[in-house]
């Protein structure tokens, strides 16, 4: 008899959900912000631990200028999304000097020399832009070959990371 294939896990779907190319900010200390299946995209959190204000951004691509669309969604691209996340978190009452930044995602396919380097491009661009914006990045949980789902707990600023078939961990 084949072993049962179902695991006794209850999928965690609660929280303020951030879609792909989307952003959410909350000043509710009890709020949990979640984004699913980052792949090569980046999930970036900004959190003020003194005021329990947090924001989560899920960007897909590094550079909006390479996309000639009439309406650019700011949260789709790093260069437009991260400044917007910073501005929105500050507007919500966060203190810029207290802000902690954490970056997740940027997974990569095997042997992708000249194709499908979105993950690496996102990570490289985030190193540069976060420095330009003066953000204090505490955590780089990036690259590798795993699909990450993340949850930001506004009370503590901790981020729970879930990857397929592995134990969850906190960063």
């Amino acid at each position, binding site marked *: 008899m084949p072993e049962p294939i179902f695991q006794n896990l209850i999928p965690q*779907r609660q929280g303020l959900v951030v879609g792909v190319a989307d952003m959410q900010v909350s000043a509710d200390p009890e709020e949990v912000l979640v984004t699913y299946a980052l792949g090569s995209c980046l999930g970036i959190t900004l959190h003020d631990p003194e005021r329990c204000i947090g924001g989560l951004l899920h960007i897909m691509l590094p550079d909006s200028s390479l996309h000639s669309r009439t309406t650019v969604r700011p949260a789709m691209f790093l260069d437009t999304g991260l400044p917007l996340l910073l501005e929105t978190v500050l507007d919500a009452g966060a203190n810029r000097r207290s802000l902690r930044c954490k970056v997740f995602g940027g*997974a990569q396919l*095997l042997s992708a020399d000249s194709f499908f380097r979105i993950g690496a491009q996102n990570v490289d661009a985030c190193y540069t832009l976060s420095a330009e914006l003066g953000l204090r990045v505490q955590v780089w949980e990036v690259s590798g070959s795993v*699909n990450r789902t993340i949850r930001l707990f506004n009370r503590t600023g901790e981020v729970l990371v879930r990857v397929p078939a592995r134990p969850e961990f906190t960063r």
Partner: protein
Amino acid sequence: MSRHASLDAVLELTDSIPCAPHILPKLQQSMDGSYVTTQDLQAIIELDPGLAISVLRMANSVHLGKTQKCETIANAILRLGTSALSRLSAISQAGNWLNQPIKGYGWDPGDLCRHSLCVAVSAEILSEFNSEAESGVAYTAGLIHDVGKIAMAYANSEGLAEVMNLVPSPYPSWESAEKAVLGYCAADVSERLLQRWGLPGALVEVAASYLHPSRIVGKNRALVTTVHAAKSLATELGYGVGVDGFYFEVDEAALKSLNFTEEKMQACVPAIVERMEDLVTPEGVIKVLS
């Protein structure tokens, strides 16, 4: 002698591919209604790999006596008519594999369905972008490309746990580790299942070879390459990607031969995501027509 289920045993265990539990009732409800268009039916069936395969199997059945194979859901619906679809919706089974996490490939509920949908959408958009493959066929091929993994997850979860421990070292790709542990891989299962069920050669060739389009000689190479590109993009976007997802090699030679470039493919990403937003909620629930 492997202690895991053989390829033939996996095939014998797989009579059909179940449908997503929340999509099947919608199809049945539509069939019961006084008025339903083929477009309505197509929109529902194209959301689910299990339903898509059932419809294609029935449309390509030898009992219908047609020599021309149906490669798209639209053509299959036209061939079958609503009465046959009504029978099919009544006998289809909802699969509990979509209700719960599944070991083996590390899927959360609905992951394979979300991933298949994203590959289908990506294949359709990429084929419209470079005009090398027929977009309707590319969509269908993308939707059912990983059907063998469902059968593998059911029949060989123990073997897949062993595979997981061998990737990325000593085996860099999931496919090579599956072959080392089991003697065959998910693409072999897909190929044999789709052949057994009488699906068109183009769809069989995609399922068998989408990881290695350079190996294809002949008229289906553009289609297989398009699905390979779509698979890679969908994986990068993360929709429903399991523990195996990132462990395959990009066939750059095949992509270049079809004039794909990284810039061209990245240009398609916003359109893919916007289309996925029409089909899947931010929570990952597949939307069915209201």
